[in-house]
């Protein structure tokens, strides 16, 4: 068991926890957090499986995971901007329908 890095196993668990939470949680912010956790899980699998005990880590996966971290950040920023915009639009929609109640 010890030759498969503990981190790769943790990465696999993180991947499935994130996948599960992303489909079964309702708040938008929670889904975005789940996507980030899933991304971290995949990167842990990547470097965890490649790491040989004793040798220096292979630089090519490090560069790939660095690219992955930046891309995940870009997706998170876009998702949050969309979520805020969606909330505003839903509130506009609700506040638009509310005036009649006041007069009704």
């Amino acid at each position, binding site marked *: 068991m010890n030759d498969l890095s503990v981190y790769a196993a943790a990465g696999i668990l993180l991947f499935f926890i994130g996948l599960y939470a992303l489909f079964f949680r309702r708040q938008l912010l929670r889904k975005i957090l789940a996507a980030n956790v899933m991304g971290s899980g995949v990167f842990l699998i990547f470097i965890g499986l*490649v790491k040989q005990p004793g040798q220096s880590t292979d630089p090519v996966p490090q560069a790939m995971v660095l690219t992955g971290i930046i891309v995940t950040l870009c997706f998170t920023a876009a998702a949050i901007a969309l979520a805020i915009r969606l909330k505003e639009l839903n509130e506009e929609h609700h506040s638009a329908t509310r005036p009649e109640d006041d007069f009704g």
Partner: protein
Amino acid sequence: MILADFLLAQPWFVWLILLPLGGAASTFVLPRRVAPIGFCCALLILAGAVFSVCQLTATGSLTQAAGHWSAPLGIVLRADGLAVVMLATTAGVGFIISCYALGYFPARGHEPSRARYFWPLWLFVWAGCNALYVSADLFNLYVTLEIVTLAAVALTALEGGAPAVGAALRYLLTSLVGSLTYLAGVALLYAGWGTVDLSLLSQVLTEDPLSRTAMALMICGLLLKSALFPLHFWLPPAHGKAPAPVSAILSALVVKTAYVVLLRLWFEVFASFDRAMTAHLLGALGSAAIIWGSLMALRQERLKLLIAYSTVAQIGYLFLVFPLAGAETAATVWTAVILFMVAHACGKAAMFLVAGTIQQTAGHDRISQMAGAGGPIGVLAVVFALASVTIIGLPPSGGFFAKWLLLNAALATGQWWYCPVILTGSLLAAAYVTRVLSWAFLDVRRNVCPVSSRVMKWPPLALCLVALLLGLAAYGPVRVALTGAPVTGHVLVEQRP
């Protein structure tokens, strides 16, 4: 002759990546001169695509290692038949959508921000598509998929309404799950075999639990991104609620990117695996997509949602390739699927552009209220009918030729049950198209509708003609598609007893 040599020597397929990226950055920096920059970029890309097609026919498929670092370390770019046909399709359909967008998003219109941000996002999608078709490196494919997805999501949300932003957010989250699953597969392959290059992997990959898991993960991720039947829930709202040129971009071009990656994986990297069970599963899902998508399209009330569900159905056809690709029918099926993608791109883009023009002139796109579409809408209804000829697959069009090849492959491999599926798909397509046309040609007196600008009328017509003539001039694309294709056998045009 020096000019010809110079033109043939240039690596056009690399220019087709740098050009849209430069265009996107400059349209972002100079928002006031967005339309001219965007249009001349589209023109240059079209010219580049034409040159790369000539280059391919002259010298065969080209490969180039970025920065002269060879395969295991650097990234290899490859312009083989599949890549060049898809580059040319994206360039052609993209150029016509760009012309249409000039009229649809007037720079000085009431909504300058929509026009100002359409062009950079559209050029990023274009760059992502071109980079994806040409790349031969698994991780590089991941990055290009991300560019295409992020730009497509922003384009979907350009409409600004609550449904559009909600659809864009669902599209983003679903694609993110798909990309991360695909990346997990790439991670397993790299951990096992130490390289992410397509050609190297196809030589060195052996079939064992690790590579089978990687294959399963990558295929699931790509299925989610290309919206095959059970995982298609995000596609109709996204394509249905976006502005017309954006829906055309999404349905005609973006949907094909994840599928082309799957095609490369299936025919190159995992070619040596025994995947009978997976192939039949994909075939079954494809058939279910055809039937279910067409039935849902029949029930739609709005024109753009009808076309979006038609996309879900047509994607089903693409997935019939995997069970039908036997030893001797691989070439037939390869050409069939490439022709189908080209025909579907032209036909679907034309349909969405016409729907956009109809929505602009009639003010809405509810099918039931398009009654008596005499006058300006009448012409558009005719163009809509022409565009749907290739979606249904009637004889002169490219769609017919692709379905004909699929039928031959099904009969040659003895899997007869795919024939009724293909034919009912065409029948149902004819059904939901005639449902739209039957409303359009009721003779009900209509008040005069505002005439939209001419630049929004001829692009869909041009696309329809291209899709129609594709069946007649199919030999050219077939020859180009087969250069450097990883398939065996020859094209079975007619079924010898």
